């Protein structure tokens, strides 16, 4: 095989399929026209292509598609139904899409009712408070006036003890 033929053989197929760029098509056509070997190869490829096409057409013509619809329906009937979780998810999504306004309102009312029940039924706390609160007179101390100058600060109540807190470094300190 000549050097030019080695370059031509891989391109003959794409050329016949019309997928070769113009610049390659020109020199390949010129080479094949002057090369008996490549002319034979091109003829072989064309014959194979025609043979495959004829075989496929012949097989398709012989196929019986008259019962295809029944076969598809039979497959649908015998397939397992979707899992319960999937059905529930689809149902939930469709129901939410259709009634999202009503569902949101009902959920809001339910949460409010739950909070009201908790507030009414929970026992009163006794003993030390869980967190610092603003100081008041109930602890025996009243902060009447306070100025933190250029600092941040707060008046807190830890049990019966009033704590004036000056934020010297800006970091969180309360548990």
């Amino acid at each position, binding site marked *: 095989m000549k050097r030019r033929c080695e370059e031509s053989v891989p391109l003959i197929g794409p050329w016949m399929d019309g997928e070769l760029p113009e610049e390659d098509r020109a020199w390949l056509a010129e080479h094949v026209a002057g090369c008996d070997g490549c002319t034979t190869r091109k003829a072989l490829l064309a014959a194979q292509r025609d043979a495959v096409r004829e075989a496929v057409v012949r097989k398709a013509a012989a196929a019986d598609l008259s019962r295809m619809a029944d076969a598809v329906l039979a497959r649908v009937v015998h397939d397992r139904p979707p899992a319960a979780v999937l059905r529930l998810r689809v149902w939930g999504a469709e129901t939410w899409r259709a009634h999202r306004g009503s569902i949101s309102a009902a959920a809001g009312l339910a949460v409010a009712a739950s909070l009201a029940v908790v507030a009414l039924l929970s026992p009163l706390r006794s003993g*030390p408070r869980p*967190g*610092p609160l603003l100081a008041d007179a109930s602890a*025996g*101390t*009243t*902060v*009447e*006036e*306070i*100025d*933190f*100058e*250029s*600092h941040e*600060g707060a008046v*807190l109540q*830890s*049990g*019966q*003890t*009033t*704590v*004036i*807190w*000056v*934020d*010297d*470094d800006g*970091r969180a*300190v*309360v*548990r």
Partner: protein
Amino acid sequence: MRAVFAALAVLAAEGSPDAGTAPQGSRVRITVRAIAATSGAEQTDPKLAPIARNLAEFAKDFRWRNFRLLSEETFDLAFQSAAQMELPGSRSVQVTPRQMSPDGRIKVHLELLGEHPEHSRKLHTDYSIQRGGTIFVGGLRLDPAKPEAGTLLVAITQGMGGD
């Protein structure tokens, strides 16, 4: 008519500028304690026993559990007389008992002053507190150069001269 005069006398007494001030000669005993509050092992200096209950309440809400007395001074002050105590880190606290309220509580003016040389005022406040009561001033770094060293807690306990 006598009743009307009596009522007017009561009203005049309540509205007078001297109402609620301490009687002449009364003195206030104020104890200032500088405390190192750190996050080490849970421990309270035995010298802080008089305010142990207050420290226990403080420890419930704040993250410091280890309390060590750094310095302590007790001042026997007349009303309107100021006392100043030096705190670690070149800071200081100044307290002035203002007056005694009709309900027996002591009104105190407190100023917290920052490091030298500026000695800028970090806070000033007026508060009323019952006799024997303690108030905390916290948040200043124990060591201004070491933020992780802990916090300086200043405890001010008020009592009357006879307490």
